[in-house]
């Protein structure tokens, strides 16, 4: 498929700018906080150093240079791949981050995938099945699950999972777990609150798409609920879900700080928590830049995925019409005009297509349309 090269370059340029701004903002903010890591470490009474000795060490580490000089030195270091040294331990920041990154990546990927699966499952079962009758409570309960999940404090969930599954049932060891064993509970801890926004957005968008005219038409033609969900609703409801997936990355990072602390995993989250307590600015700067990079990359991928998922967002006409034919709504819309320009909203197209196909089977679809073209279900 075709990717707009100019668009890609533009986005990459934006990404670099965002990184630079994040770095600068973090640097300035960390410098504004009174006291720095060098004093925090060497003036610690546990070392018993005199004020003169601390001053000598400060001079040696360059902590007393002017702000701009330190900024330029640090920026130069980052550009050449030298992230400096931890103030607290003296170890190279690159060593510390490199040791922590794989563990966080594993947790992020597994937590993220679990969250997506969990979110999709909740959304599907919250919108599937009868709305009335004895089993309707299933839907009602599942519908409120996202609100519950987002309200669970991560640290509480983590501690509770350890208490139950490790200390009570002895299923998982916290002392010397295997690589997979070590991931199970942290993954669950991260995934539960993360799945909430995904499920919430999917529930809303599935409900919305289900109320659309073309779905009713398809149902009228005798398609089963499952068939409709898979073939008609899923693809249309996916887009808002994809957007939220890009946005929850930030939450993933925040969740990792707490989860890694509770489970004693040496990850980016844990070193961040420790660096904050020790005013270890070189580590914090590296973490901020790394997290920004992750955020930028994920959202870039999401943006590039939009046209893959939704033909309406593609530029080329050929690809759009070729893919569009597979969709039941459009397959049924032989009468609809094939001029699918970006100016025309998807709702207009759908409306036209459905009006045509509905009238062909003798049904009058009198759906309401508000200013934004949002479809409303007929009461």
């Amino acid at each position, binding site marked *: 498929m075709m990717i707009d090269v100019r668009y890609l370059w533009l986005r990459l340029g934006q990404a670099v700018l965002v990184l630079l701004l994040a770095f600068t903002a973090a640097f300035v903010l960390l410098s504004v906080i009174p006291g720095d890591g060098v004093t925090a470490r060497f003036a610690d009474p546990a070392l018993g*150093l005199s004020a003169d000795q601390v001053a000598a060490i400060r001079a040696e580490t360059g902590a007393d240079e002017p702000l701009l000089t330190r900024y330029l030195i640090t920026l130069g270091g980052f550009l050449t791949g030298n992230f400096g040294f931890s103030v607290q*331990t003296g170890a190279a920041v690159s060593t510390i981050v490199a040791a922590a990154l794989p563990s966080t990546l594993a947790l992020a990927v597994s937590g993220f995938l679990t969250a997506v699966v969990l979110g999709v499952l909740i959304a599907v079962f919250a919108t599937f099945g009868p709305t009335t009758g004895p089993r309707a409570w299933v839907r009602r309960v599942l519908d409120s699950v996202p609100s519950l999940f987002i309200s669970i404090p991560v640290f509480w969930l983590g*501690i509770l999972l350890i208490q139950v599954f*490790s200390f009570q049932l*002895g299923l998982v060891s916290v*002392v010397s777990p295997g690589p997979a064993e070590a991931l199970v509970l942290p993954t669950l801890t991260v995934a539960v609150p993360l799945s909430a926004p995904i499920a919430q957005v999917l529930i809303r968008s599935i409900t919305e798409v289900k109320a659309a005219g073309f779905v009713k038409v398809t149902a009228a033609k005798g398609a089963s609920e499952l068939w409709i969900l898979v073939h008609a609703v899923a693809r249309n409801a996916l887009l808002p879900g994809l957007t939220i997936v890009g946005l929850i990355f930030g939450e993933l990072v925040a969740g990792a700080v707490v989860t890694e602390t509770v489970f004693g995993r040496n990850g980016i989250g844990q070193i961040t928590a420790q660096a904050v307590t020790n005013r270890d600015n070189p580590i914090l700067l590296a973490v901020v830049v790394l997290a920004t990079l992750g955020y930028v990359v994920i959202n870039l991928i999401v943006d590039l995925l939009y046209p893959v998922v939704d033909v309406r967002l593609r530029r080329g006409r050929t690809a759009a019409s070729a893919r569009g034919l597979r969709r039941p709504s459009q397959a049924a819309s032989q009468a609809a005009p094939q001029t699918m320009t970006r100016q025309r909203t998807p709702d207009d197209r759908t409306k036209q297509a459905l009006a045509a196909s509905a009238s062909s089977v003798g049904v009058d679809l009198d759906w309401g349309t508000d200013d934004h073209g949002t479809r409303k279900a007929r009461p």
Partner: protein
Amino acid sequence: MTDLRPPHRATGVPGARLGATTRRSVLGVGLGLGALAALSACTPTDTDPLTDGPPVNGGVLTYFEPQTWTLLYPPSVGFYPNGGIMNNISARLLWQDPETLELFPWLATALPEISADATQFTFTLRQGVTYSDGSPLTAANVAKNFDLFGRGDESRTLPVSEQISNYDRAEVLDDRRVRFHFTAPSPGFAQATSTMNAGLLADSTLDLDAEGFGPGSATKIHTAGPFRITAETIGTKLSIRAREDYDWAPPHLEHQGRPYLDGIDYLVNNEYSVRIGAVLSGQADGVRDVQAPDEPRVTEQGLRLYAKATNGINNSINFRFRHPLLADIRVRRALIAAIDRQEIVDKLFTPNYPLATGLLAQGAMGYTDQTGAWVYDPAAANRLLDEAGWAERGAGGYRVKDGQVLALTVNTALPQPRSNEVQTLVQQQLRRVGVRLSINPGDQAKQTLDALDLDSIQIYHSMVARADYDNLRSNYASVNRDVFLNAVGRDDAADDTVDPEIDRLLDALASEPETERRQAAAEAVQTYLVDQAYVLPFFEEPQVFAFRRRVRGFTTEPVGRPDFYSTWIAS
């Protein structure tokens, strides 16, 4: 963390216990953190036999620390996680008995020859000692060690050891003898060579910079102790293993040769409930830093609880007399009379935290009994404050003089047990006599930085442990920890508020070579500090450990750091 005491301490019948636990567990799930107490309380009790047999070799001990180690540079191992490692991997010239505090030879063949004025110390080294990288212990190597510890190296951000004062140079006399020279008497040096802060390093390790002593390089640290570092997972785990060829234990010890354990895995978890839970559930063998409210739970579960004395300065608050509000001795005496130490110890701690009877713990060198110096008497406190001109009461019932409120700020001593709770009680007690106490919030870095400023912190809560007379100097001298901020040339106080008598008495102590006279000099320091009402000690601070029953022979060195050399695991 909330109170984690078991919810059913009174029930003795096994059946009733089970029923209560189940009900409580169900309730607890809905009640948030309360659930943890109930759930953990029904972990199986440790029922291993307690009978001691002959020690057996083998087994790796898993041991939980609350924080990851930061630096294995010996002068910096006062930080508990660092010291817990360094004490087990390093060997020293001398060995100090944790009970009697007497010094014995270790890597030296005998106690050092000390010149009459305590400015020269000559050690003769044991032969056949090797470091874990295979290099031998030589006189040149020992000299190189103390040249670094005694002088520091600012270009490598390796600080000087606070325990070695007046260091000049080391002189290699021959391949077995080394002599240390001092610019002034340094009678504490012999003891300083016995602490983990003087753990000897191989030549290759001595050339490392601060990065080389930090996380990521642990396996490059080569020492001569019974264990050596074999593996490191940054931030979560450090493994040390027994040296089979270790054959230079302190000669007077019964246990000689390799350690009984095959090794120790130090695990790190910041979350207290996880650490204590791991030991209670039997997943780990031991944990440091059991908090006072958990002690009954640990013993009820059948585990062994060790409260080890740290033999140093007691957990105390120091009144920074250079601040205008504390300059009047009547105000300081009033604060002391207004604080009920017995209530603090009874409400917040267990009998493992004995009420302080002096500035120093009873087991410390230089201990002087000062019982009776700190009597709780709120009426006297009110009278003293009235006399000092603080009779007027302002808003909230706080005392006012010339429009200024009698308001003071105390730091939170995060490494010390329940500092915040202690200060909250003190806050209530002082409020009753019209004194406002604020507790400085914030993390360790903020506490450290604020404590350097007289305007931020006027009452300083701290403790420090070293089993030597010099401990007093480390804590109170203006060139060391300077708890009173009593050094000249400060921006926040005029120089004429300095009390030069403190440093004068401490200098007299530091330069006194004879033991009996050192005791007298130490007593003089303490008497002066007590007479001036500069310090209020609360309790003797222990290090509290919990171990599974199968772990035998656990001991600590004189200031409460774990010593695993003679520890063994019953099969």
